């Protein structure tokens, strides 16, 4: 018997003119790990909410068809009754952890089910051990990091040993390390608990490698339901925005795409196409000692030995010096706590350095992580001038009359960008500096590409703090790596992003950093031009323009 069965399910949110999901039929068996793919607004979240009973019981609206979870019909059983069979994890860890301590949080769903105290205590211990959060049990939830909170929320979803676990972009609000840890944890839980897992995720390269199946959605309909390799073959043909970089690389070489770095390397190795280089040697070969950029022209932004020391606390920035030329596109990378966001705040004047100086030739516009925070008016046209709106692609007069909160996620971000850019020298913004803090968090690939294109079109200097190497490879001309509050590396994307693991793109990881290839198309050029030889790979690297 299937754990989840949807039969011709169509659902329309209250007040919506079109259904969010339409005619969806699928079955998910016990222990299956299914990845749900699709762009923003494709119906992934709605499908998950139909599976846990929030649709229609919590949201209202019009529901047709039949959804059964472990034999329970969701029309007859609400999310409360289904909670014993289905565990759900949402995007934002802050709003799904409701209790004061981790122990109480794990106990809540079991107590709601009226479990006996011994069963509650045992389930808490088991969930805590399985998730590696036993040491957090008595910690206040208010003190936990985002990754820890998300683990606790997952523990609460798992504590009742559900047969089905639904995860709606669980890593979108986490940094990459916490996100990777969570995905690895899910993989282990799927094996240990034998629960079926359905995970909606944008960064498919993270989880496709160990999925049993991938389901793609578009416009509320299921457009592909296949094993990962079959899904990738379909995506490379019909939906390139859903194909992983590794899939595109193999497809570009005329090979059948496979999921995961290891499988892709094996495929290339079997055909003697894998560049015969040591990844670390390749990375080092592509690197050269580089001094911080110093240009003859006046920099658009200059940080001169900037320190930020917290009173009775640590130093977040430790003498950072950085010059950004007009029109230069710089990515600021580094692990959490490295000082990226603090540096951007200093650049924009939100913070004052305790030592050192910040100078800029024009306006420094800062776009923080949540674009909704910028929106305070009733109409899009009131938020920014027509010139600024046109620059970010929101010049359509019909859009000007819409409520800013009704825009899509990508449109909201562009509107927020128009707000901070307003009056900074339209239409070219030549002297402006645009700073963005983690702009791709929770974005699908289509939106990331749109943003990269928009940033490339601006004449302004651009400084983006991000953890996303794939995005960096598409827009940046320079990467500055921060560590412990200092710039520890400064170079081209190929120099910084190839040859490593954490800061590397999937293409670079598959090719071991050969030739400094960062995106699939560069990888195809290098591999097809010079298979099997380190020397020829190096010569290909010399000819390949690897800067984005």
């Amino acid at each position, binding site marked *: 018997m299937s754990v989840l069965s949807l039969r011709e399910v169509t659902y329309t949110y209250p007040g919506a003119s079109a259904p969010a999901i339409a005619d969806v039929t699928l079955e998910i068996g016990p222990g299956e790990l299914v990845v749900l793919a699709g762009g923003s607004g494709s119906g992934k979240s709605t499908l998950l909410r139909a599976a*846990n*009973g*929030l649709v229609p*019981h*919590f949201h209202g609206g019009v529901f047709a068809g039949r959804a059964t979870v472990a034999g329970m019909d969701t029309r007859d059983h*609400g*999310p*409360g*009754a289904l*909670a*014993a069979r289905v*565990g759900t994890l*949402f995007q*934002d860890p*802050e*709003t*799904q*952890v*409701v*209790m*004061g*301590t981790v122990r*109480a949080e794990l106990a*809540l*769903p079991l*107590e*709601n*089910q*009226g479990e006996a*105290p*011994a069963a*509650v205590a045992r389930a808490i211990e088991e969930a805590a051990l399985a998730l590696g959060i036993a040491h957090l049990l*008595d*910690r*206040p*939830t*208010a*003190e936990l990091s985002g990754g820890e909170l998300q683990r606790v*929320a997952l523990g609460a*979803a798992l504590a009742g040993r559900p047969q089905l676990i639904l995860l709606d972009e669980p890593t979108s609000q986490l940094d990459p390390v916490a996100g990777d840890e969570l995905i690895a944890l899910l993989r282990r839980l799927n094996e240990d608990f034998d629960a079926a897992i359905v995970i909606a995720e944008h960064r498919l390269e993270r989880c496709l490698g160990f999925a049993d199946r991938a389901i793609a959605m578009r416009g509320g309909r299921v457009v592909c339901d296949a094993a990962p390799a079959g899904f990738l073959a379909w995506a490379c043909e019909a939906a390139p925005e859903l194909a992983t970089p590794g899939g595109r690389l193999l497809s570009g070489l005329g090979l059948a795409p496979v999921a995961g770095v290891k499988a892709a390397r094996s495929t290339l190795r079997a055909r003697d196409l894998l560049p015969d280089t040591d990844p670390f040697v390749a990375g080092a070969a592509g690197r050269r000692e580089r001094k911080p950029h110093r240009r003859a022209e006046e920099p658009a932004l200059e940080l001169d030995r900037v320190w930020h020391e917290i009173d009775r606390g640590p130093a977040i920035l430790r003498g950072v010096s950085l010059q950004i030329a007009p029109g230069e596109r710089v990515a600021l990378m580094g692990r959490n706590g490295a000082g990226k966001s603090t540096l951007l*705040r200093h650049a924009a004047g*939100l913070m004052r350095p305790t030592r050192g100086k910040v100078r800029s030739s024009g*306006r420094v*516009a*800062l*776009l*923080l992580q*949540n674009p*909704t*925070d*910028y*929106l*305070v*008016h009733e109409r899009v046209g009131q938020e920014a001038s027509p010139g600024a709106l046109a620059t970010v692609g929101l010049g359509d007069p019909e859009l000007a009359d819409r409520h800013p*909160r009704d825009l899509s996620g990508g449109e909201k971000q562009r509107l927020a960008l128009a*707000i*901070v850019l*307003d*009056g*900074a020298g339209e239409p070219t913004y030549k002297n402006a500096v645009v700073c963005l803090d983690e702009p791709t968090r929770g974005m699908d690939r289509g939106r990331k590409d749109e943003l990269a294109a928009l940033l490339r079109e601006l004449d302004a200097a651009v400084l983006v703090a991000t953890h996303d190497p794939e995005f960096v490879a598409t827009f940046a001309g320079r990467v500055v790596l921060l560590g412990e509050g200092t710039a520890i590396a400064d170079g081209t994307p190929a120099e910084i992003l190839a040859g490593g693991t954490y800061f590397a793109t999937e293409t670079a990881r598959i090719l071991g950093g050969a030739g400094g290839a960062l995106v699939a198309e560069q990888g195809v050029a290098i591999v097809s031009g010079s298979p099997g030889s380190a020397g020829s790979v190096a010569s290909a690297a010399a000819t390949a323009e690897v800067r984005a």
Partner: protein
Amino acid sequence: MSYRRRASPLHAARAGVGCAYCAALALATLLLSAPVALGAVVVSIAGAAVGARVLREMRRAALLALPLGLLVMAVNMLVAQGGLTVIARLGNLPVFGQTDITLEATVYGAVLGLRAIALVLCGALYTAAVDPDEVLVLFRRFSFHSALTATLATRMVPVLARDARRLAEAQRCRPGPPPSRARLMRATTSGVLDRALDVAAALEVRGYGAARRPARGWRMRRPWSRHDLAFGAAAVAIVGLAVVARVANLLPFQSDPSLHAPVGAGGAAVAAAILICALLPFADRRGIER
């Protein structure tokens, strides 16, 4: 200010006992009005804060309570016209009329202010040292949904504070004049409602909507620790001492027409006993870490 588990005897005691201990101190504050007794209670609370390692949180609460105490005292000085010892004649003031400040009204106002401060500090001690989740478990038998709402409100305070800081930062990034307060309020409210919707959905999928009243004996029986016994006994003793002192009038206090607050041997013994009872449980520091 929020609860954080620390290695202290009060934190190691069960929530019911912690509640009782704080309530006993509050009750003593309400039952006794002699300055020496109130002083003993305030010193007890301060000592408990040190023993529970929540002095910093309590200092913050005291800074908020002090103006309240002074306000109570000032209002009483102006409003209460009893007492024979006039220390200042303010003449005919608007609203208050003919106003004389008397020593007795001033002292009584100070006592009321001290009582207000002591009550605030009792509440602060409870907030900092008693686990709210355990309290929720205690009260869920009576009204689970109300208790959970209270816990949730406490949990959401830091989240919303972070939201507010984020919003303020975003507004500072906007060029030109800042938006009006009304617009900001509307934007903030929208954000809070979004948060509320997310939290409600999370509660639903945790089974909140189908939550059942737990059966009797729902809680796992936890053996009484030395700290449970010590603080429980302290709470009973403090309430007992306060009641005895009140009934036997061991600590009389009168402020009208003249001040009368003699401290006899019995009264001094009661004040000292309250202090000792409140602080003695902190002496035993075995098994305080979890």
